[in-house]
C-alpha cells in the first residue's frame, strides 16, 4: 500500500521501465465512458491491464455554485444546493437549511424535524438504491439496476406527492418546512417500508452470495482505516474500513438523537464491505423511518424566522451525514441578506481523491468497480 501522503502525481511522459515498455498504455477513461457515472475523466497508466497510477480530471460539470451563492439571498440559494448531489437532494437541503438556522440561532420545531428525518432517510435509501443498481451494472450484473429503479420510484412518488418534485425536491425551508404533510403521508411511508423490506432481501439474494460478485468485490479497492482518515474519506467508505463514525450519532443534528439505530462497520475496507455496509444502512434507515413515523408529533412546522434573513456577522460550519459522507456547509455572513461566502464540503469530491491509492496495482476492471463503490456524483464533485 502506497503512503497516501507521499503519493506522487502521475508522470504521463516517461514510462516506468523505459526499456521494457512493450505494453505500457495510457488510457483516457472518460469523460464519455459508460462507467464513470457522468463526466469524470480518469487517466489510467496501465502495464498491460495492471494499473500503475491514475489521475482524475474533473470539473466538466462545474457550475460555480459557491459563486452563485454570493450573489443570491439566503432563501434564493436554497434550491441551488439540490443541484449538487442531485440523487440526494433532500440531504443537501437539510444541511444548508440547518447551517443557516444555526447562523440565525433558530431551531426548527419538532414536527418539522421529524419530517426532515423521514424525508432524508427516504432519500438515503433512494441514493443507496441508485448506487447499488449502477454499481452492480458496472460489475456486469444488469438486472439489479432495474429492480432498484423500480423500488426507488416509490420513494420518488412520495416526494412528488409531498412537494411536487421528484429529484430536486427543495423540500425544506430555512426554519422548518413550507408544506404540511398531505393526507395519507404516514400511511404511504409505512406502506413503503413494508414494501421495500423484502425488496432489499431480493437485491441481496441476487448479489450477496453470488460467487462472481464476491470474487469481484472482495479485496478489491482496499483502503485501511488509517489511510481513509488521512484522506478525509467519510460516509460508508470510511465505515467499511472499520471506523465507527456517523455524524448522526457523533454530533446529532435534527432529532437523530431520539432514534435507535445501529451504525454498521466493515472489517477489511474492501468493495464487498462497502456493499454490505450500505445494504445494512438501508435497513437501518428503514428502522429510523418506522420510529419517526410512529412518533411524529403534532405542532407547527415553521419556526419564527424573519421575513428577510439577515444573520449577524459571523461564520458557521455545519455538517450532516449525507448518503455519501460528510456534507458540510461553511457560511460566512457579513450581515447582509446575501451570504458573503458559502463553502460546500462535498463528500464525493474528497472521497474521489482516494481512488488513486485504492486502484494502484489493481486491474482495469477494478477501477470501474472502485469508482462505483466510492459512490460519487459528478454534480457534487464539480459543483
Amino acid at each position, binding site marked *: 500500500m502506497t503512503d497516501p501522503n507521499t503519493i506522487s502525481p502521475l508522470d504521463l511522459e516517461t514510462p516506468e521501465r523505459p526499456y521494457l515498455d512493450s505494453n505500457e498504455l495510457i488510457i483516457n477513461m472518460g469523460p464519455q465512458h459508460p462507467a464513470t457515472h457522468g463526466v469524470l475523466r480518469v487517466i489510467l497508466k496501465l502495464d498491460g491491464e495492471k494499473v500503475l497510477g491514475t489521475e482524475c480530471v474533473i470539473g466538466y460539470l462545474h457550475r460555480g455554485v459557491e459563486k452563485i451563492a454570493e450573489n443570491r439571498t439566503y432563501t434564493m440559494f436554497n434550491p441551488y444546493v439540490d443541484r449538487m448531489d442531485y440523487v440526494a437532494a433532500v440531504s443537501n437541503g437539510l444541511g444548508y437549511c440547518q447551517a443557516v438556522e444555526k447562523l440565525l440561532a433558530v431551531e426548527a420545531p419538532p414536527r418539522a424535524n421529524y419530517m426532515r428525518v423521514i424525508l432524508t432517510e427516504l432519500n438515503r435509501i433512494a441514493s443507496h438504491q441508485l448506487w447499488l443498481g449502477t454499481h452492480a451494472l458496472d460489475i*456486469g450484473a444488469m438486472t439489479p439496476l432495474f429492480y432498484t429503479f423500480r423500488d426507488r420510484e416509490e420513494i420518488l412518488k412520495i416526494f412528488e406527492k409531498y412537494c411536487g418534485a421528484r429529484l430536486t425536491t427543495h423540500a425544506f425551508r430555512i426554519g422548518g418546512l413550507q408544506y404540511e404533510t398531505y393526507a395519507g403521508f404516514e400511511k404511504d411511508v409505512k406502506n413503503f417500508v413494508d414494501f421495500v423490506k423484502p425488496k432489499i432481501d431480493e437485491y441481496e439474494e441476487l448479489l450477496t452470495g*453470488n460467487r462472481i*460478485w464476491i470474487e*469481484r468485490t472482495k479485496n478489491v479497492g482496499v483502503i485501511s482505516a488509517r489511510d481513509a482518515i488521512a484522506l478525509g474519506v467519510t460516509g460508508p467508505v470510511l465505515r467499511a474500513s472499520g471506523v465507527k463514525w456517523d455524524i448522526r450519532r457523533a454530533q446529532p443534528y435534527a432529532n437523530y438523537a431520539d432514534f435507535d439505530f445501529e451504525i454498521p462497520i466493515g472489517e477489511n475496507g474492501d468493495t464487498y464491505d462497502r456493499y454490505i455496509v450500505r445494504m445494512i444502512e438501508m435497513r437501518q434507515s428503514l428502522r429510523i423511518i418506522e420510529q419517526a413515523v410512529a412518533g411524529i408529533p403534532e405542532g407547527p412546522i415553521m419556526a419564527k424566522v424573519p421575513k428577510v434573513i439577515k444573520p449577524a456577522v459571523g461564520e458557521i460550519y455545519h455538517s450532516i451525514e449525507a448518503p455519501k459522507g460528510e456534507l458540510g456547509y461553511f457560511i460566512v455572513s457579513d450581515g447582509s441578506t446575501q451570504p458573503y461566502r458559502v463553502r460546500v464540503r462535498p463528500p464525493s469530491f474528497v472521497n474521489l481523491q482516494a481512488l488513486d491509492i485504492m486502484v494502484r496495482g489493481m486491474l482495469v*476492471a477494478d*477501477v470501474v468497480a472502485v469508482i462505483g463503490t466510492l459512490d460519487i456524483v459528478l454534480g457534487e464533485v464539480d459543483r
Partner: protein
Amino acid sequence: MLDSLKSFLDGSVSGTPGQLNNQVWALIYVLIIFAGVSVAVIAMNWLERKALAHFQVRLGPMRVGPHGLLQPIADAVKLLIKEDIIPAESDKFVFWIAPLIGLLAAFTVYTVVPFGPSQAVSDMNIGILFMLGVSSLAVLGIVMAGWASNSHYPLIGALRSSAQMVSYEVAMGLAVISAILMTSLHGTGLYGVSSLGDGTGTLSMIGIVQAQQEQHVWFLFKFFPLGLIAFVIFAIAMVAETNRAPFDLPEAESELTAGFHTEYSGLRWSLFMLAEYAAMIAVSSIAVTLWLGGWLRPFPNLLSGATWDFIFALFPGLTFLALGAIALLGTVRMPKHPYFKIQTIGLAAFGVVLAGIGVLLLAVPIAAKVSNQSILSRSTEALMNVYWFVAKVAVFMYLYIWYRATWPRYRFDQLMKVGWKVMLPISLGALILTAIVGVLLG
C-alpha cells in the same frame, strides 16, 4: 441434374449430400442452413431482448410491430443504412476483412452440424475436429478487429479475447475428447455393462449421435457422473468461447466501452453481432450433438415402434399450434383502442400463420400414417430430427439469456484462473477416469 435431385427425394439412397457426392443438394442444404441460421439469429435477437426485459421487470421492444415483433427488421434496416465509419488511423484492409473472418468461421461450422442422419451438408469423418478448428479461427477476426482499429480499448478487448479463447479451448477440447472416447467404450455406467454399439470410435458428428443411439444412452448420462462433468465443463467453456456473459470481457461495456468492436459501426458491426449469435448456435449444436443425443427424440429405443414414432411426430405441429395460440391470446389481450388496431391485426395474422404452420406440420405425419407413402414418411422423419435438434439447441439459447440476466462479469485474471486452475484439471481428470472406467467395464 434432375436425376440427382430426384434420387435424393424418393429415398432410394440415404446419406448426406457430401457422402453421396451430390453437389446440387449440398448447395441447397447450404442455402437452407444459411437462411435458417440467419432467421434464427434474428429470432434470437428479438427473444433475447424480450426475455431479458422480462427478467428485468420491463417490457422490452413494444413499438415496432405487435410486441416488437418487427424490431429486429427495423434494427437490421437501421444498421444497413447507417454511416459506415472507418477510423482514419486504422489499418483499412485488416479493418475491412476482420468481420468477414468472424462471420465466415461462424457459418462454415454449420457444414457438419447434423440436423439428422442425412440432414447435414457433409458428414466428415473428422467432423468434430473440423468444427473445433474452424470455430477457433473466429478469434482471428476479433484479434484483427481489435488491432486494426488502432485504438486502446479495442486493443485491450482483443488481447483479452485471444487469451480467453485460447485458454478455454483447451478445457473445451478435453471435454470433447472424453465424449469422443465414449463412442468407443461399452458400458453405460449406472445401467451396468452392456454390449450395445460396435465399439469403434468416431470423430464424425453423425457417428457420435448414432453411437449414442446404439448404446441406448445420451453421453450426458453415460458413466454417470463423468459424462455430466465433461458436459458441464463444455457448457461453461462454450460461453467463454463465444464471449457471452458472464465471460463477456472482450466487450465488457462498463470497462472497455464495447471492446474489440468499439470502432465499428453500421453493417460491419452487425456482421460481428451476426457472427456472435451464429457462433452461439454453433457451439450449442456441438453440445447437443455430443451429449444430448443430437437429433434423437427422447427415448428412441425404450419407446420405439410405429405408434410412439407417430406420437412424437406430432410434437412439431403441436409446438407451432401452441405458439400460435399464445399469439392469438396476445391478440385478445391487446388494448381495444383504435390506435392498436393495426398491431392487433398484425398479431392475429402472425398467430394464424404460426397455427397454419402447426397444422401443416401435423398434417404431414398424419398423412404419412394414413397413406403410407415413402416420401411422406421420409419427410416426417426429417421433420422430427430437425425439430428435436432445434428444440435442444433452443434450450441452450435460453440459458445464454438467463446467464446474462443473472450474473455479474468475471474479472480477467479470475477468468484465466478458472480456466486453467479449475476447468482444465477437472476436464483432464474426467477424461482419464472415463478411459479407466471404460476399460474396466468394457
